[in-house]
């Protein structure tokens, strides 16, 4: 029976096409594949389900074994966040024209290119750097790419990164950098959670390609020393890569405003569902400097004129610098990344505007501070663990209880507790990282306090 996805599987049309080709059978078209390499069995796959209704029932049957965080009361963050997703964002990123497009360029995909350029345009305003690329896979890979660019630009082979780094970020750096770059971790201040500036000063030398700093860091602390870190890096001829969560940038200083050479972060909070981590998308920004642009081959689109006066056209900015042209001769890897999320983030930034983004950031800081203080009042909890200012995440420590056991008890009561840090950061003891965003009401936070009090009692 012809399959609904394969129009030319009908026997009559196949015969007609073979006649025009001048072949007797499909097998005649495979004569270049040697017989001894041919796989003559049936692939060991489950029988097909060509009927859509039956297929849908089967797949949803499996998916229904999931319990979405969005249908519980969840305080998980650590690199992927439950924020409000405006309906407009969903509507735009489900458009088949965008979803099923790919590498069509200037003419076929004018609208897609304009939308991606607008992402660059708005993000450039937000981080105050002139060039923003089509975003990378996530914050970690964007940071890794920026650090690799610094190595290429300076010819130095050592980078300094905070010890207060999410485990995933550490492991991405280990893979992408460590084979030929020394990645040294700078400790954090046990009291504040901020980077230990004295340790940074001691580690900095003229062999350092780059210093990496982020706000908030792995403990949710907004490291307001970032401008000093940038200055210290520059004093040693090193470049500065600054990570910043865009939800804080309505009211916190932009990386470009204090001299960052690269800015990175994740735009997942800007209109993307979490999708088990599939919503991540790492922005990457830098100066409009041809050498820097050359070092970093992520796609950039440029606006230009057309034959029609007043009309905008768009195309790849300096395509020749990408791996598609350079191949193995000096280019970092590039290619397909997360364009659909860039289009979505552009819509999100347009929807919120300067006022909305400021209100969002304020609300995050107020709610998370409220939650951190309320949790800290519970007997058996020390919190917030660090005194540094926070954006939307904070650390608490249990005096006696193991985090995993508390999580189990909370989950049984419909709450997903914060991320357990006791494995990734053993020196912090029984600590966990909690995210509070605009999806959480006061009642949600109060309920958490009530339930946690009961669990720890």
């Amino acid at each position, binding site marked *: 029976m012809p399959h609904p996805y394969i129009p030319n599987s009908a026997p009559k049309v196949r015969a007609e096409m073979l006649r025009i080709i001048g072949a007797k059978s499909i097998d005649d078209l495979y004569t270049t594949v040697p017989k001894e390499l041919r796989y003559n069995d049936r692939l060991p796959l489950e029988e097909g389900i060509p009927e859509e209704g039956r297929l849908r029932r089967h797949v949803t049957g499996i998916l229904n074994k999931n319990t979405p965080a969005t249908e519980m009361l969840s305080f998980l963050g650590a690199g992927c966040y439950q924020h409000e997703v405006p309906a407009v964002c969903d509507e735009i990123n489900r458009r088949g024209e965008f979803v099923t497009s790919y590498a069509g360029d200037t003419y076929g995909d004018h609208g897609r290119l304009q939308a991606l350029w607008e992402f660059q345009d708005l993000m450039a305003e937000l981080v105050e750097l002139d060039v923003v690329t089509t975003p990378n896979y996530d914050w970690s890979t964007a940071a890794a790419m920026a650090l690799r660019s610094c190595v290429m630009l300076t010819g130095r082979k050592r980078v300094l990164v905070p010890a207060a780094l999410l485990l995933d970020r550490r492991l991405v750096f280990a893979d992408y950098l460590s084979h030929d770059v020394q990645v040294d971790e700078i400790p954090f201040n046990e009291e504040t959670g901020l980077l230990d500036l004295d340790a940074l000063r001691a580690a900095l030398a003229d062999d350092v390609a780059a210093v990496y700093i982020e706000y908030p860091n792995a403990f949710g602390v907004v490291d307001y020393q970032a401008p000093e870190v940038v200055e210290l890096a520059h004093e040693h001829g090193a470049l500065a890569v600054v990570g910043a969560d865009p939800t804080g940038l309505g009211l916190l200083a932009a990386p470009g405003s204090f001299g960052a050479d690269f800015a990175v972060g994740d735009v997942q909070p800007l209109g993307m569902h979490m999708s088990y981590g599939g919503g991540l998308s790492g922005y990457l920004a830098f100066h409009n400097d041809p050498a820097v642009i050359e070092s970093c081959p992520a796609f950039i689109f440029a606006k230009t004129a057309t034959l029609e006066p007043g009309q905008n056209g768009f195309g790849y900015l300096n395509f020749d610098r990408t791996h598609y042209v350079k191949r193995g001769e000096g280019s970092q890897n590039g290619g397909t990344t997360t364009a659909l999320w860039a289009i979505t983030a552009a819509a999100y930034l347009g929807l919120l505007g300067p006022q909305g983004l400021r209100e969002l950031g304020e609300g995050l800081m107020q709610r998370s501070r409220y939650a951190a203080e309320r949790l800290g009042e519970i007997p058996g909890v020390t919190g917030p663990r660090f005194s540094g200012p926070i954006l939307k995440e904070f650390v608490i420590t249990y005096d006696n209880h193991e985090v995993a056991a508390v999580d189990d008890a909370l989950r049984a009561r419909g709450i*997903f507790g914060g991320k357990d840090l006791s494995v990734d950061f053993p020196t912090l003891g029984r600590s966990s990282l909690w995210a509070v965003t605009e999806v959480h009401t006061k009642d949600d936070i109060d309920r958490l306090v009530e339930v946690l009090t009961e669990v720890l009692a």
Partner: protein
Amino acid sequence: MTAQFQQARWNEPLLSEIGSPGERGYIPSPPEAEIIARVPDALSGIPASFQRAEPPRLPEVAQPQLMRHFMRLSQETMGNDVAVDFGLGTCTMKYSPKVNEHLVRLPEVSGLHPLQHVDTVQGILEILWRLEQMLCAISGLDRFTLQPPSGSAAVYTNASIVRAYHRSRGEGEQRNEIISSIFSHPCDQSGPYSAGYKIVQLYPGPNGYPEVDALKAALSDRTAGIVITNPEDTGIYNPHIKEFTRLVHEAGGLCVYDQANANGMMGIARAKEAGFDLCHFNMHKTFSSPHNGMGPAMGASGVREDLARFLPAPVVEKRGDLFELDWNRPESIGKVRSFVGNAQIAVRSYSWILALGPDGIREVAETAVLNANYLAALLREVPGMSQPFPTSNTPLEQFRWSLEGFKEETGVGSSDISRNLSDYGLQPIFTSHHPYLVPEPITPEPAESFSKADLDTFGNAFLDIAHRAQADPDEVLNGPYRNACRRIDSAALDDPYRWVPSSRAERTRMCNAAESAPLHNQPS
């Protein structure tokens, strides 16, 4: 010109140009009064010097106008849902079934946090595990990771695994070269380069693929492995591939198969039987997940059992009836992306493979090759079209042919014809990756989703443009005419004094750069 297509041409202003001060499109939920009363100053603890001095210059626009803006941009985009998109060779543009789009938007996928306890994500872990089993069956290899978020990330991942393998044997320093071929995808070289390798490039012999002797000359005790596509971007299959893998193994290297595009080969021949140790598939090409305008995507990397210890952490394991994430992988290369990757794409590809089953999957491959050969029969009629290699005449899923003769006759080359195809409601045709070893190249790839009528439409449009070019080359050179925009000034894309990556860059440049030329209308 007889074509009736007309793309939407809204001449839509930039997002930063619409709206007016004070307008807004969305109000985030505010905190309750009690919270504000307890924390009146959100910024307390942030030094004044670290507070933003000026609000970001973002648009101020109400929701209706913003929505309309993006809908109009979507109308100016030729996705595969609206256009015959098979011009984009090597990209495997195919139908992405709508049922799968509905599935990934269920809260049971979109609402999952990646750090949820495994007990609460048994469904998504089961999908990841089942998809891995399917890919093992299709490739013959033993384990897959679904963490790489693109094809080139998967090639990079495989190069990292090759590196880890040689290090584990104490040969990491010595084996610092990866062999590839110029007709393989460019990421087969940039991926290993990013993993620290020097690239040794093989060039095609008279039949379009690298000769065994060229490989022998490239092999040495510095060889870490080979990363190669087959069929290459030309659609030509290297029949000596088994000899290639044997020789690389003999020299102590590993063999990595770039199967990003396996659309003509599924169920026909597998990585295992050809002697490969690693391979990768692009879920957003061969396995129907939509390309999403350039991602998010997924490149699944597969390995032989003895290389599984190097896979990025975590991997999904099935223990009894339960699925777990195994983080205990001391020899793992690390991670190539946060969490487990783009899980929603695994849902789509799993559902697609299951919809087809073993017979359907093979039928996909056979139909893709049938379609390519039928299109080749149509395009053979184009005056001045030539086949660069004797083997180009019977392509697999795609083919690279040359319009060199046509360009000599008319002055109209492959990129000009490509551009004009969009006047017929067809996605422009991919020419070639660089370098252009085949002059004036075209590389169409009509996957199984396209009907005979689609192929005829494309063939007729191509012939029509060719006839127009013969009659009046300038008329074609100035095209396209019926798209969202006219021919662009492309010189401004490559000139640092003129390129415009953002309004911010434009403002800075116009203020500071005395030597910058004003934007002007100068098509090239």
